[in-house]
Each structure stands twice: as C-alpha cells, then as structure tokens.
C-alpha cells in the first residue's frame, strides 16, 4: 500500500479537474529478466468502493491499452489534436467501473524488459502468465480491490489475451476457497477467435459489403483453404493481396466507411 501512494497521479498535464482518483506505475512480473508491466488505474467517477474493477487489454499483438483503450475508447480522457491537453469522454466506462489499463506484454508502450531477447520470443503463453503475476502483485499493492467483482475486457488480438488470462485466473483460483481475484466474466469486441472460421467469415464480409469483386471472391474461395496447418498457397496470397491493394481502395479497413488516415 505504501507503493500505492507513490503511484497516485495528482493530475496529468492539460487535464480538466476531475473528482476520481488515478494511479499509475510499474509492477515487476519477472525479476530475473527484468520484465515490468505499466498500468494506469482511473477509478470510478462515483462511489469507487462500490464499483467493480475492469481490466482492459488491447490487442495487436503489441498494441497499447493506454494508446487505444484509455485514450480513444473507454477511458475518461480524450487527447486533443495537438497533444497539448485532455478533455472528458462523456461516455467513459469509469461511470460504472474502476478501469485498469495494462500495457502488455513487456515491450508494449511503457512496459519494458531488461532482457532484449524477450522482445523476440514473446507469445500467448508468456503474455498470459505475466498478466496473471501482474494481477496478483497489483492486488497486493491495492488490497482494497481484493475480492471485488472483477471483469476483463478487450478487443482484436485481445480475443486471445482475455480468455487465456481468464482461464489462468480460473485455474489459479481453484486452490483458494475465497480467491482474491473475484473473476465474474469477460467481454470482447471484434475478437480474434478461430483462425480458420475467422478467415472464412472475413472474406464473406468483404464480398457481402461490396469491398471486392465477384471475380476476386471466387478466386479467393478457389485458392484459399484457410486452414492454418498448410499455410496459404501463392495463388491464395495473390488473390487476397489483389483484393486489398486493388479493390479495397484507400479506406480505413478498421472502419470501412472512413477515409484512411494520411
């Protein structure tokens, strides 16, 4: 708890006055390799002690929950165009929950490792393991959140991170009659779920939303079998690349009716 006080954020540069508390800092998850994960907690704007705790994870893999989740999506602040100040997000999820943003794994955003080879051999497994260790140690620093209703949320490649962490928490909790991490559930958006079925559904979306021609759609169906084992044939890659480079146009694939960001 002493460290909790040291982690307290008095105010961010250019931030409007707010009533809720904020904390941020590092939790070491591996002493030997010197891996430490950066977190930012923005407490609920009203009665934080009665509100659940929500951990938010962005995907990538390799993308920052501070950059996206906190600053563009569910967090209480938005950054203005010049990066000089912050303004309030009217629909911030901290109206309903205490929001914990975690930059995971090490190497993402402010999270770091002192063993540079870690950046070349990270994967689902170690990411989930480090995230569990983070949570256990974070709860020791913030004992007021032990036993509190706890949820995990995320999007995109966090379609892997979130259920994998949930599974590790579930298995970890089996050893305790009253687990400190009181996981109640999770919610994921535009989540990477199953490579084979996701790929088929993705090409279907491209065709049904008139992003690709019938000819291209037919050649993708003809040459791509979407099962991970074999990998894609050259003809499949050719058909998909043709679609993306010659038929999509200059759009934001993450929001197809939005022009691409220059």
């Amino acid at each position, binding site marked *: 708890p002493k460290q909790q006080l040291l982690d307290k954020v008095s105010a961010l540069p250019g931030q409007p006055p707010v009533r809720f508390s904020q904390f941020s800092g590092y939790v070491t998850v591996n002493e030997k390799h010197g891996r430490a994960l950066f977190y*930012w907690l923005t407490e609920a704007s009203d009665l934080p002690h009665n509100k659940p705790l929500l951990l938010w994870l962005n995907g990538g893999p390799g993308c920052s929950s501070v950059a996206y989740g906190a*600053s563009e999506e569910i967090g209480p602040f938005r950054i203005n165009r010049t990066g000089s100040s912050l303004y309030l997000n009217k629909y911030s999820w901290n109206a309903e929950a205490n929001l914990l943003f975690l930059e995971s794994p090490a190497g993402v*955003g402010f999270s770091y490792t002192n063993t540079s080879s870690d950046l070349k051999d990270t994967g689902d497994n170690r990411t989930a393991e480090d995230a569990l260790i983070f949570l256990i140690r974070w709860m020791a620093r913030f004992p007021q959140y032990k036993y509190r209703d706890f949820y995990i949320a995320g999007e995109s490649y966090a379609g892997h991170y979130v259920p994998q962490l949930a599974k590790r928490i579930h298995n970890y909790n089996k050893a305790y009659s009253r687990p400190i991490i009181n996981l109640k559930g999770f919610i994921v958006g535009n989540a990477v779920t199953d490579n084979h079925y996701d790929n088929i559904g993705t090409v279907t979306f491209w065709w049904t939303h008139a992003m690709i021609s019938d000819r291209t759609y037919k050649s993708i169906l003809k040459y791509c079998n979407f099962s991970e084992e074999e990998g894609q044939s050259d003809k499949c890659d050719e058909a998909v690349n043709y679609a993306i480079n010659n038929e999509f146009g200059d759009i934001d694939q993450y929001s197809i009716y939005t022009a691409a960001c220059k």
Partner: protein
Amino acid sequence: CTENYAEKYYNRPDVQKALHANVTGIPYKWTACSDVLIKNWKDSEDSMLPTYKELIAAGLRIWVFSGDTDSVVPVTATRFSLSHLNLPIKTKWYPWYSGNQVGGWTEVYEGLTFATVRSAGHEVPLLQPQRAFILFRSFLAGKELPKS
C-alpha cells in the same frame, strides 16, 4: 488519426513524469504498437473455442460484440466462429435499441451473449461511444440489451 495524438502526448517528458512512466529510460520512443513484438510473435493458439467452452462451463459471464463496419475482424468472422460452439439459444435474435435508434442486433445463448454494434468499427467505443456504454452497462448488470 487519433492515435497520432497519443504519440504526441505520451512522449512528453512532463506527461511521463506525471504518470511515473519510463522511469528506466526505455531506449525507444513510446508508441501505440510495437513492430518488434508483432513481427516476432511466437506461440499463438489457432482457436480460442476450446477455452470458451471451458470458461462457459465454469459459469463466467461471457459477452462477445462486433462493430459492424470493421473489415479486419468483421462481424461475419466472429459469428462464423461462435456458431461452431453450437450453443443452445436462450433469447432469439432481436434488434437492441440505443435511444430511438437500432443499436445493433443480439442473440443470447446458454453461457454467451453476442451483439453487433451498428456503424462501429474495430474500436467500437471510439466510433459509437454511447452504444458501447449501453452494451457495457448491460454486461455489468447481467441484463439483456434493451428491446426498445
């Protein structure tokens, strides 16, 4: 281009000091996505469906949503994957509402709720903050999305 704003803001020394960030002097700029990590990502599970089955059996509350203008992990991808869980339907497909507008469609299965969010891209709360907030509030309350 909103992620450019974050690239500016979080690389400011005064912001990093206020956040107790970068205390070890990381030898590279803060950035929204790490190229090194994504290019060298090692183990990645082919499918999360077996994990979903395990966590549904454990009784967790599980919601999955899709912004319906995303083409990277689009709504049809998620629906096609989830359909292979073969979950029994509890509440049949219906439009849910945000104000007097259709916010999307949803179906409630034994153990999992699926919902689309209309006119939202990959980052649903960025493009449809009010609809995303209604979705989250319903999830937390454990209630079905509003039918009107």
